[in-house]
């Protein structure tokens, strides 16, 4: 396990470098931030001065070299927009996103497993049709719609929930999570259903029934674990999507997360923050991938020990 982890971590480091390089170069392709940060009437000298102060006057390679040097010392530079250290800004914003993503995925996975299994139990039955139809509809509703309707209906008309914001009790979580949930939930229901249809017709399911196992035991004890692999892959991708930022939710509900920060820093050409944010999410995603690999190994021993005597 230790060697496995070590190998994974080492092999992840190289892509991480690519991500850093890619973001650095791409960010600079979006254009010069000088105009954004200097008043419209700024003179040539002022612009040059600004560029020099932030290193934009150097060649991109030189900038990159400097940046890498800083990153190695865990210095991510300063935000052009707020003047704060970029690393600090990113670290402040990240937990909010992470919490949201974690709770959402937890609910999505549990719910999708239950409903997906139910649907797969009798494929093409009415229950299956209804579950598939509803979950798909949920997945194809534009999230900003859902969010705004949620605010208007539950926040204003019914007056049940706060419209937005982060401080307050559990109720402030309801709408953001519901908004984030619909798509992963719909997708996962479909995936779990597909995998369960296969797993439930496997021979070992028959064997379990021949032992007199109850249907609950058959479905959740035997079939489900076999159906977890594809679901896990997809759940991983969905989680990555959420970690990369729930832009809509964060924007609409004023949730101070990394997605909004990233969008703002792209639109504001705030390179230092963008780079720090991407680096942090990339690291998180790599960790997540490793966790998923470990989950694979935990779920399926064949991954762990390919063959033994």
């Amino acid at each position, binding site marked *: 396990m230790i060697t496995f982890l070590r190998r994974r971590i080492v092999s992840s480091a190289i892509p991480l470098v690519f991500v850093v390089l890619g973001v650095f170069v791409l960010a600079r392709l979006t254009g010069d931030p000088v105009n954004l940060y200097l008043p419209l009437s700024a003179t040539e000298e002022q612009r040059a001065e600004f560029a020099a102060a932030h290193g934009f006057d150097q060649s991109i390679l030189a900038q990159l070299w400097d940046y890498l040097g800083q990153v190695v010392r865990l210095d991510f530079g300063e935000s052009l927009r707020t003047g704060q250290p970029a690393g600090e800004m990113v670290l402040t914003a990240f937990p909010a996103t992470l919490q949201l993503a974690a709770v959402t995925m937890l609910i999505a996975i549990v719910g999708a497993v239950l409903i997906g299994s139910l649907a797969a139990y009798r494929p093409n039955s009415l229950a299956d049709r209804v579950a598939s139809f509803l979950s798909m509809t949920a997945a194809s509703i534009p999230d900003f719609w859902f969010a705004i309707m949620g605010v208007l209906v539950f926040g204003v008309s019914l007056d049940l929930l706060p419209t937005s914001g982060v401080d307050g009790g559990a109720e402030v979580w309801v709408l953001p999570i519901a908004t984030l949930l619909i798509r992963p939930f719909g997708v996962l229901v479909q995936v779990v259903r597909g995998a369960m249809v296969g797993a439930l017709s496997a021979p070992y399911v028959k064997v379990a029934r021949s032992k007199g196992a109850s249907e609950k035991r058959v479905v959740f004890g035997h079939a489900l674990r076999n159906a977890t692999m594809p679901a896990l892959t997809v759940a991983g991708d969905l989680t990555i999507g959420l970690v990369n930022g729930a832009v809509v939710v964060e924007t609409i509900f004023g949730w101070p997360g990394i997605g909004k920060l990233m969008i703002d820093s792209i639109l504001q050409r705030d390179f230092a923050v963008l780079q720090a944010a991407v680096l942090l999410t990339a690291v998180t995603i790599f960790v997540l991938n490793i966790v998923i690999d470990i989950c694979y190994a935990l779920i399926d021993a064949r991954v762990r*020990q*390919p*063959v*033994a*005597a």
Partner: protein
Amino acid sequence: MLEVNVTAPPVLEATGLRKTFRVGRKHLTALDGVDLRIGRGETVGLVGESGCGKSTLARVLLMLARPDDGTVRFGDVNPFALRGKELLAWRRRVQMVFQDPYASLNERMTAADIIGEPWRTHRDAAPADRRARVRELLELVGLRAGDADRYPGEFSGGQRQRIGIARALALNPDLIVCDEPVSALDLSVQAQVLNLLAELQRELGVSYLFISHDLSVVRHVADRVSVMYLGKVVEEGPTEEVFDRPVHPYTAALMSAAPTLTPDRGDPILLRGEIPSPLDPPSGCRFRTRCWKATDECATPPPVVARDSRHTGLCHHPL
């Protein structure tokens, strides 16, 4: 098609094959210096305990696995050195019938697709001819032409196995490695299939490596037999010789354990103990942990005992 020298007597000659698998930190020696020789038009039986390496040997011969050591020669070519066209031409000469009729057929393909796949790879028969030839093959192995469009899932275990056999026959190979080809078949079909194999041998000079647990079948079809135990060939010789006058105690135990229709056979030799783990096999003679004749001497590598020039065994205490 590339014609390789067909006059040389052995179709296949394998010497000193070794194959180890890494299992965690350990090495599992599935084949430990196996020699095998199959002549043209000959059937060699391969028997042995389950897990002794028979399928692994078959996989190495088919180049599904690369041996760690040892050489394989077909005629005068070393298949592992072949590339491109030549390799494809060689592939056509050697085919395999797999042990597990459930896993070796793609559930999504119809019987016709499965049987016709070799032709697709080799761009052989025109699609129109293929159907006719598929029918022919299906009938050859005792299925019906109408089964061509059915999927493996709709066949019983035995019927599946026959599809596997038909597929192996599709390219008219020189050598077919049969890994338990008939164990899933009932006697009557088994008889049909064995007759078919024999007929092909007579007419086309096909050679077989015939892996089976059913000793009566091996005895019927094989010209020579090799007996394997834990990755080593412990006895080898002409079938009748080996069956009637075994050298190695394991061979004897095997023979006596086989059920027969005649009820009045002698008491079977009951082996004690478990099959040792191939991860750390016993030193010296590998059978010594279960052998009723074992002595301390058996902890050293056993000598080759030759009953006659063609019948040899590896044992300290030959019978």
